[in-house]
């Protein structure tokens, strides 16, 4: 069964349409055939019933009364009328007022269930063949004969049946022709429906492998869904490719200077003979390599953020947990033990839809910026402000001057994030995270003479029960 389902899913659209049309044609054909046959029978029945009635009336009107006895000379015209059904046998019976058969076949039985037999038709048998009969009554009110004489005329059904089959057959011809027309139409429709798909496939396969520009969306609405999804996918791919490209070039650029400096120091060290100066050089090498280590950390975390921003699944994250985690990891105590860091979180959850490691990385970078450039006390925390979820770092300094802030902002907007000092890289990471999760990075002085770096996000929708 799963095999069958799988095969069904892989069935081509053409085959599906063909199957649908075939089923439609078969069911429709059967229904129309039955209807045509029913109609044919009805038409034949009414046509030949009238012949019967005509013949019976003809015979009834030929009855006369002579000497108190009904006298009949069967009109040949009545039988010629019946001979319109050339191969059918004819039965007739004329019943007198007293119920005796005056002439004709006594074998013809009147229907029993009708007591007061009126004029009309009934089905019966005639010498073993099914037959159809008409009854016509004629009343006589003579001095010598008073009563009703009934004339029954019947016929076998060969002509009726052949007429019914004939009508059915003609209807089936029409049906076959229209079925053929439907199949042709279906072929045309399927081809025209599948053309856009073929065009899309064609343009995709003809594409340059590096071309990730969006595809033309001037396609039928149904296929536009697919094109839009494809375009979205390609845009993400494009973003990631760009990020990687930038990361690689940034990394190369940023590593070149410190590594060159290190080598220079190392060269100096090997050339130096004075021990005290050698010591100084070692000291310098140590600071340099520590800085290089930090730079590497940051670059890796940026790579991580960029990667996760596009690929990680968004989860419900409480920003207070992020602040708490960063606070408790206590990197700041190692790096800048002289600075006081205060955690400031409330009781209400501050939930957003985002990726916890990315957020943590961003917050860490903001914190380390504050520790490096700001003044104690430094506070980190998470809160709800004006309907936005905010995670922030504050310090008591003035922060960068207005001009630097403006420059930073424009740089972020240009996307050239990382070509600057490590503080810029930290902000760049925070900015990337903010953008990845539809938030923003705000750097501004607070009204309490403090500088705040904050990430603002949309609050996650309330959890449904």
């Amino acid at each position, binding site marked *: 069964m799963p095999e069958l389902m799988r095969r069904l899913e892989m069935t081509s659209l053409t085959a599906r349409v063909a199957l649908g049309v075939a089923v439609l044609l078969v069911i429709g054909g059967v229904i129309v055939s039955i209807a045509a046959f029913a109609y044919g029978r009805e038409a034949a029945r009414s046509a030949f019933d009238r012949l019967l009635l005509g013949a019976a009336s003809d015979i009834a009107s030929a009855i006369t009364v002579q000497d108190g006895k009904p*006298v*009949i*000379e*069967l*009109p*040949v015209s009545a*039988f*010629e009328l*019946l*001979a319109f059904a*050339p*191969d*059918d*046998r*004819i*039965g007739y019976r*004329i019943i007198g007022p007293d119920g005796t058969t*005056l*002439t*004709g076949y006594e074998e013809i039985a009147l229907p029993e269930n009708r007591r007061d037999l009126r004029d009309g038709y009934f089905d019966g048998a*005639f*010498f*073993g*063949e099914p037959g159809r009969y008409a009854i016509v009554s004629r009343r006589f009110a003579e001095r010598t004969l008073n009563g009703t004489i009934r004339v029954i005329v019947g016929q076998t059904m060969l002509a009726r049946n052949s007429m019914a089959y004939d009508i059915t057959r003609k209807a089936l011809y029409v049906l076959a022709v229209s079925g053929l027309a439907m199949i042709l139409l279906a072929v045309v429709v399927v081809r025209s429906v599948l053309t856009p798909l073929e065009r899309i496939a064609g343009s995709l396969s003809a594409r340059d492998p590096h071309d990730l520009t969006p595809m033309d969306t001037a396609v039928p609405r149904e296929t536009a869904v697919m094109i839009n999804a494809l375009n979205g996918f390609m845009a993400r791919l494009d973003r990631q490719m760009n990020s990687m490209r930038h990361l690689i070039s940034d990394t190369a650029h940023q590593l070149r200077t410190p590594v060159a400096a290190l080598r220079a120091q190392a060269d100096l060290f090997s050339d130096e003979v004075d021990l005290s100066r050698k010591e100084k050089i070692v000291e310098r090498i140590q600071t340099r390599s520590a800085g290089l280590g930090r730079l590497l950390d940051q670059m890796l975390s940026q790579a991580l953020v960029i990667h996760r921003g596009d690929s990680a699944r968004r989860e419900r994250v409480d920003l207070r947990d992020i602040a708490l985690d960063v606070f408790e990891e206590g990197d700041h105590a190692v790096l800048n033990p002289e600075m006081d860091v205060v955690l400031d979180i409330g009781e209400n959850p501050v939930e957003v839809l985002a990726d916890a490691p990315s957020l943590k990385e961003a917050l860490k970078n903001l914190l380390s910026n504050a520790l490096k450039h700001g003044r104690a006390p430094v506070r980190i925390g998470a809160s709800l402000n004006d309907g936005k979820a905010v995670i922030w770092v504050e310090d008591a300094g003035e922060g960068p001057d207005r001009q630097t802030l403006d420059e930073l902002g424009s740089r972020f907007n240009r996307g050239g994030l990382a070509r600057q000092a490590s503080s810029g890289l930290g902000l760049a990471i925070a900015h990337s995270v903010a953008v990845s999760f539809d938030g923003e990075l705000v750097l501004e002085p607070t009204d309490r003479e403090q500088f705040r770096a904050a990430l603002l996000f949309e609050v996650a929708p309330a959890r449904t029960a």
Partner: protein
Amino acid sequence: MMTMTPSLRILLAGILVLLNCGPAAAQEMVADFGPEDAGQVLVLRSTTDIAIFEPVVETFLQTRPTVRLRYEQWGSNELYRLSRRDCHSNQPGADIVISSAVHQMVQLVNEACASSYRSRLTEELPGALRWRNELWGITREPAVMVYNRDLVPQGDIPQTRFDLLDLLRPSDTRYAGRVATYDIEESGLGYLFAFADAQEASTFGALQESFGRTRAISTCCSADIIRGVAEGQYLIAYNVLGSYAQGYQQQDERIGIVLPSDYTLVLSRALMIPKEARQKPLAEAFLDFLLSPEGTLALRTALLISPLLEAEDGNEGESLSSTALRPIGLSPALMVALDGLTRETFLRRWRATFPGP
């Protein structure tokens, strides 16, 4: 095989004529053809005289050495009653029934007494000579007027029914009491012809009236009437079966034959295969034989397909336009002829015309 010399045939015909009248309960004559020890016996019941049909049967048997054919000759009314009784009691009787009283045959077919058969040859028959694929017309025999060549002057020979009416009209006509026709109460064929006449034209009413006024003779049987004309007992016979008349004429030059040119009824003897027939395939073979060129030729030789109906025949001035030929078609309309009340009404009128001897 049974062979007959022409003189024997005439003798036999004479015997038949004697036996032909009267309500015979049994068959009038039986003849067996073919070898005594034949494996198959085909029973044929017919109203046709054995002598006339014999050559046809002989031709049929020529190619079938293992078949024996028993030919029973019946009067039409007896044949009808017998066939009907066999049919309704589901008793096997004849394998083939051939009757000149086609209305009775139509009635039998109508009562589901016949079995159906189709072949290329039966399909070739015109629609009027075939009904339900159960009844087939195998002969073409006109109803003719016969006159005595010696006693009827050339100018008096009636070419139409109107001529006959004119002959009978004068009160002192010499044809009074000397015109003969069938007694339709006795002869099924006579009744059929009279009935067809009544359907065909109003002339028949006038003719009947004239017959009555001039005390025409109604008597039985073709051969009887024709012989009467030849011998001068009657001067003119009306509605005589052309095949018998022509057959008689070949032996006896004293009679002349006229096909009425106003219209001539053409009878096709009807053949049916009863549904209880024991030798159906053989019966069907016989039917196909009768319809085949070979059988048609045999029937033509026996005068059952009348040469009179063909333009090139020897009789002077007898060729008719085809519109004057009125075949009595095999259709259920013929059932009217057999209807009891209708027949009674018809016969009552007939009796009023012929008060009887």
